[in-house]
C-alpha cells in the first residue's frame, strides 16, 4: 500500500497537471472574486472564508477524475484489483494520494490567499484549521464519485453533478466554522460536525467506492 502511495505521488508530481493545476485554479478564483464583487475591504473580509472554502472545493473537484481514470485506461487498475490488498485499501490510498497533492497544498495556500481577500487576523488560522480537517472528506467523497464514473467515456461533467451535492454538508459546516472563528465566536460545534463527516467518510466511503469499482471492473 505504501508502494502504491509512493507511485501515485510520483505520477502526480512528474506527469504535471493535477498538482499545480488545482493550486493555480484556487489562486485564479480568489483573484476573480474581487473583480466580481468590487474591491471594498469590508465586503471582501466578510465573504473571504466562504469564498476560500468554495474555491478550495472547486479546485478539489478539478482533479477528481484523475484518481482512477488513468489507471483504468491503461489497465493498471485491473492489476491492482487482483493484487493481494483489498479494494477498500486501494481506494483509501488513492484518496490519500489525492489529498496529499491537492487538499494539503490548498490548505497551506489558503491563509496566504486570505491576505489577498483582506481576511481578519484570526481568520488565517481558522481557514487553515477548517480546510485541514475538511479537505480529507472532500478527497474521500470525490474518490467515491470517481469510482462511480470511472467506466464512462466523458464522466467529467457527470462527476461534478454527482459529487457537488455530496459536498454540501462539508461545505456548510466548514464555511460556518471558518466564518464563526473569524468573527471571534465559538466555532467548536460546526468544527466537530465537520470532523464527524470527515471521520465518517473515511470510515465508510471506501466500502461504497470499492463496491462501485468492482461493478465497473466486471
Amino acid at each position, binding site marked *: 500500500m505504501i508502494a502504491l502511495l509512493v507511485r501515485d505521488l510520483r505520477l502526480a508530481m512528474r506527469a504535471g497537471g493535477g498538482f499545480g493545476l488545482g493550486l493555480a485554479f484556487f489562486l485564479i478564483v480568489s483573484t476573480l472574486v474581487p473583480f466580481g464583487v468590487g474591491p471594498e475591504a469590508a465586503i471582501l473580509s466578510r465573504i473571504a472564508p466562504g469564498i476560500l472554502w468554495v474555491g478550495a472545493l472547486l479546485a478539489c473537484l478539478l482533479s477528481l477524475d484523475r484518481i482512477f481514470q488513468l489507471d483504468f485506461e491503461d489497465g493498471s487498475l485491473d492489476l491492482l484489483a487482483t493484487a493481494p490488498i483489498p479494494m477498500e485499501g486501494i481506494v483509501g490510498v488513492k484518496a490519500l494520494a489525492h489529498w496529499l497533492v491537492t487538499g494539503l497544498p490548498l490548505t497551506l495556500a489558503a491563509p496566504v490567499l486570505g491576505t489577498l481577500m483582506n481576511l481578519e487576523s484570526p481568520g488565517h488560522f481558522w481557514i487553515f484549521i477548517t480546510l485541514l480537517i475538511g479537505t480529507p472528506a472532500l478527497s474521500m467523497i470525490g474518490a467515491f464519485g470517481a469510482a462511480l464514473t470511472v467506466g464512462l467515456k466523458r464522466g467529467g461533467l457527470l462527476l461534478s453533478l454527482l459529487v457537488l451535492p455530496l459536498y454540501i454538508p462539508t461545505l*456548510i459546516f466548514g464555511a460556518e466554522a471558518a466564518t464563526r472563528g473569524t468573527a471571534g465566536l465559538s466555532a467548536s460545534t460546526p468544527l466537530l460536525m465537520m470532523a464527524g463527516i470527515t471521520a465518517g467518510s473515511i470510515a465508510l466511503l471506501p466500502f461504497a467506492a470499492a463496491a462501485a469499482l468492482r461493478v465497473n471492473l466486471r
Partner: protein
Amino acid sequence: MSLWEFANPVKFMALSGKVLPWVIGLCAITLIPGMIWGFFFTPEATNFGNSVKIIYIHVPSAMMAINIWVMMLVTSLIWIVRRHHVSVRAAKAAALIGVTMTVIALITGAIWGQPMWGTYWAWDPRLTSFLILFLFYLGYMALWAAIDNPDTAADLTSVLCIVGSVFAVLSRYAVNFWNQGLHQGASLSLDKEEHVSNVYFQPLLLCIAGFILLFLALVLIRTRTELRLVRLHRLDVRERMKDA
C-alpha cells in the same frame, strides 16, 4: 405469494397489468373530488385569501417528493441485497416522478411565497433542503442515463442512492444549522399542519391520498415501461450477437 416471486418480471407484469386499472380508478375518485372540494368549496382564509388553495397541490407533492426518495432507498437496498430485478426498475421509475414532485413543490411554493412572504425564494432551511433534494434527484437520474448496460447502471445507481441518502439527511440538518444558527429568527414558519382547521384539513387529506394513488399508478406504468425497455435491450444485444 411473496415479494420475491415478483422478482420475475413476467409475474410482475401479469399482476401489475391487472391491478393498474383499479389504482387509476381509485386515484381518479379521490384526487378529482379532493381537488374540486379544495378549490371550490372551502372558504377563503383570513390573511391568505384564495392563495390558501395552493396547499392542495403544494403539501401533497412535497410529501411525495421526500417519500419517493425513501422508497428509492428501500428498493435500491433490495436490489443490492437480493438482486430483485423489478425492484431496481421501480427505483428508476420512481426517480422520474420524484423529481417532478420536487419541481411542483418548489414552483407552487414560489407562487405561494410571492403574495404571502413578498418573495419567491428565501434561503429558509426547508426551501434550501428541497433544492438540495432536487440536485440529488438530478445526479441519480444523470447516472442512470449515462450508463448503457442496465445491470451496471442498476448497481452503480443503487450505491449512489444509499450514499446519497446519508448525505441528503446530513444536508438537511446542516442546512437547519446553517440558517438558524447564524441568522437568528427566521420568521417564516412552515409548520402549517398543526394550525390548519378541519375545513381545509379534510380535503387536504383526500388530496394527499389522491397523490399517493397517483404516484402508485404512475410508478406501475413507468416500471412496466422500464421492464419492457430492459427486455428490448436484451433482445437487441442477442440479435447483434447473432450477426457477429
